[in-house]
């Protein structure tokens, strides 16, 4: 550690940071040749966690497989409704707004991806996907946080890793600073008058300076630093670009605020958001219905995000993830139970899009995991690892995924050369 973040922020580095050029970055730029320079060139990863286990088979539909229709008499997406991608797979009709991105090769789907661990517990599986250590419950920190700990190239700003929501998710837990923001507009102390607000902020900052060590102390410190930076960025003035129309609701609002942070150049490298409502045990629906409504919101939100970012998408990758997939066969309630592999979406300029990536094991009974679920052919760490290495420039994946080294041989080619 060459310089404490605290001193850095307090000693006037702010002006530089608000341009996206922090002193460390400048100092290192000369040595980090392949690293893009300049505010709009900093690579960003946005992770969207579909909590509750999304039904990958109805999101990216294998409409070329007869078994899909045999096992899902009530909830399969009729072939006529599927937005065909490559003759075998297609998008759920609710995701039609994303077809344009597929066509311009900035959207890829990854199928049959998941965890090597067989658990069908939401809790465990989410935990494993966030810690990056399937089967290991003792891991305390998340893989995004470990990336931030080990990759010092991108100097920390309080906004380097941000989760949207009132709670800091497991994926960001750890010793590297990370931030949970419920609402960007309301972040900070609520005192109408600016002078009084600054004074109160300083008073609380001093109080917590004496809080010693531990989570309370570090969380408060990071909070105050973020408040100061955000003050410069002035988020209240934001308007989405190019007529981007985010759908109402939490997801739209959150992606709008992520776009805002990206454009504000406050040093954002990884953003994380949850979107829930995928645990469709009962009356999942088909082209219309419960899952269709959730996917419609997702499709509209992602399309709006892409439009809003415009030219900036060339350095942004958005990745969806979910803890596992759902049973191939529909259950007795026109829903699906907990399964194994699922599908993920990657979109953005750096994405090698227009393709369904990963080896598709098919739905033949003998290929199924435990005779019932889509088998995992891609360990999620291979995808996460590829994105960290080839998009964010991570050099030490072994430290990010202990006990496992994602190897370039197993990379799917999700990121363009």
């Amino acid at each position, binding site marked *: 550690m060459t310089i404490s973040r605290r001193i850095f922020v307090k000693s006037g580095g702010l002006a530089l940071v608000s341009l996206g050029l922090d002193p460390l970055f400048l100092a290192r730029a000369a040595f980090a040749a392949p690293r893009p320079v300049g505010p709009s060139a900093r690579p960003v990863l946005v992770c969207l966690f579909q909590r509750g286990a999304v039904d990958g088979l109805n999101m990216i539909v294998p409409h070329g497989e007869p078994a899909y229709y045999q096992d899902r008499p*009530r909830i399969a997406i009729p072939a006529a409704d599927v937005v065909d991608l490559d003759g075998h797979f297609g998008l759920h009709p609710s995701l039609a707004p994303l077809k344009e991105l597929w066509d311009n090769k900035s959207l890829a789907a990854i199928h049959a991806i998941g965890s090597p661990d067989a658990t069908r517990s939401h809790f465990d599986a989410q935990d494993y996907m966030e810690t990056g250590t399937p089967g290991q419950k003792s891991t305390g920190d998340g893989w995004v946080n470990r990336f931030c700990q080990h990759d010092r190239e991108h100097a920390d700003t309080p906004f380097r890793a941000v989760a949207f929501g009132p*709670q*800091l998710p497991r994926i960001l837990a750890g010793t590297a600073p990370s*931030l949970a923001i*419920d609402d960007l507009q309301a972040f*900070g102390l609520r005192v109408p008058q600016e002078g009084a607000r600054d004074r*109160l902020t300083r008073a609380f900052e001093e109080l917590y300076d004496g809080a010693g060590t531990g989570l309370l102390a570090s969380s408060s410190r990071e909070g105050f630093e973020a408040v100061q930076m955000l003050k410069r960025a002035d988020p209240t003035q934001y308007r989405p670009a190019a007529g981007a129309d985010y759908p109402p609701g939490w997801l739209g609002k959150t992606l709008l605020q992520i776009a805002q942070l990206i454009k504000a150049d406050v040093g954002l490298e990884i953003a994380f958001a949850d979107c829930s409502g995928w645990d469709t045990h009962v009356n999942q629906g088909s082209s219309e219905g419960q899952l269709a409504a959730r996917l419609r919101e997702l499709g509209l939100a992602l399309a709006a995000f892409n439009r809003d970012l415009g030219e900036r998408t060339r350095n942004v990758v958005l990745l969806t993830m979910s803890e596992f997939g759902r049973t191939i066969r529909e259950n007795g*309630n026109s829903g699906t139970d907990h399964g194994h592999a699922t599908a993920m979406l990657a979109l953005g300029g750096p994405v090698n899009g227009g393709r369904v990536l990963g080896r598709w094991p098919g739905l033949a009974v003998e290929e199924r995991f435990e005779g019932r679920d889509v088998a995992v052919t891609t360990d999620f760490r291979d995808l996460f690892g590829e994105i960290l290495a080839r998009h964010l420039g991570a050099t030490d994946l072994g430290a990010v995924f202990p006990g496992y080294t994602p190897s370039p041989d197993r990379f799917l080619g999700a990121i363009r050369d």
Partner: protein
Amino acid sequence: MPLFLIATACVLAVQAPVQSLTPRDSAFHALNRLAYGARPGEADSVAHVGVMKWIERQLDADHISDSHLAERERQFKILDYDRADLAGRYRDATRERQRLQREAAASGDSTRMRGARPMQEFRELGGQLQQLAIVRAAVSERQLREVMVDFWTNHFNVFVGKGADRFLLPSYIEETIRPRALGRFEDLLIATAESPAMLFYLDNAQSVAPGSTPPAQRRSAFLLRRRFGMNEMPEERRQRRPTGINENYARELLELHTLGVDGGYTQQDVIEVARIFTGWSIEPPERGSGFVFRDWAHDHGTKHVFGLTFQDDGKDEGIRLLKSLANQHATMHHVSAKLCARFVADEPPDGCVDAAVAAWQASRGDMRAVLRAIFTSPDFWTSQAVGSKVKTPFEFVVSALRATAIEPDDTPRLAQLVARLGEPLYQQPAPTGYAETEAHWVNSGALLARMNAAMMLAKECSSVPAIDDHAQLVDAIDQKLLGGTMSAHTKSVILEQLADITDPEQARAMAVGLALGGPDFQKQ
């Protein structure tokens, strides 16, 4: 039973596990953990009675008079509602919403839905429940029972936003959880399994043996087939009828409610358990939405699980299974460790967990015995434990109300405050409930929200008088809000901030706000 109590009380009096703490500090600690913090002066009065005696009284909650709470409860209409009434109104509201949606779809005019909000009553119901929880936690004299109600409601989490749970939750809390909060674990487990709220939330109400059909539907399906042919059966109808088992409740029962995720069960065990619970369902709204066992939906085959065999014994299969699960070692350990995380430390020492398990074994799951074992364990009283836990959002808000002597009102604002701090009541969609460890609620955004909450509540503080002398003011705050545990650093920062404030009201609001929002008050 009385003999047992007397005997225990004697042992406690002799044991006095509070060596390193003053009687007042011990009382303050007990009030932080067994209650929602100390009201002004309460640490002294508990110390005066004797902390162990106070703990025994809290364990015997039925004998504590609670007239102020009873008065406050009378203002909550929700407590007069009957589940059957609510069920009928919910069904009407659902139909009304569907009708509006159909009309909107037919006319292509999505604006038609605006203004008409048939579900509004049920959204407000959820809000009332949250307000009631805050009032009870803040004013009840039976503090430990309120803490345990919160613990169990979270352990057996039901998400208020899921369909029928909007109206099933009130009876879940009043009839299922509250009467059993200090009772036997087994009784509580069975009650939750039979509760319409849980049956709906984890989908067991829809879990039926494959191939089974309801007697009434057998006739109508036959008629329909004659009239339309099977494939022309109305789509909605075909989709609605459950035709197989649903594993959701079975899995969460094992993973979350009883054995724990490391409890050593398999996917096959989950399926067997799900088969045992087929037929545990809910009456239709016109019959009150109560529990019903549907024999036609039950899987009558033989099931093998955890070394037990279940052979066509109807509902009793499930009861027998629950009784067995309630007293398995993995369950005792899982639930005891969670209790110790709540009461002792986020990472509880083995000693208190072992003591709780032993008491569970000896009393067959009497929660009062288990809790007593935790509170008399030396681990509960060590300096590592005292002041080591960060309050949850709910604990923070309620303890602030108690310390400042703010009577919680019947507006949604306090519940909204709890939500803003990260843990809205009854609104955790995942069956895990909220975690018991600080990493889940301490983060920079949430801390800023606590400071904002503190400044807001400080304006209404009535426990601290406005005093001209700043040093005296800060001392008064230390005594009333923090039981004399305010750090020297906090004192000096607050005094510094007061330096140029001359108006005593303003000084009080600033000082109380900083004290409530500062690090000392976050801890318990």
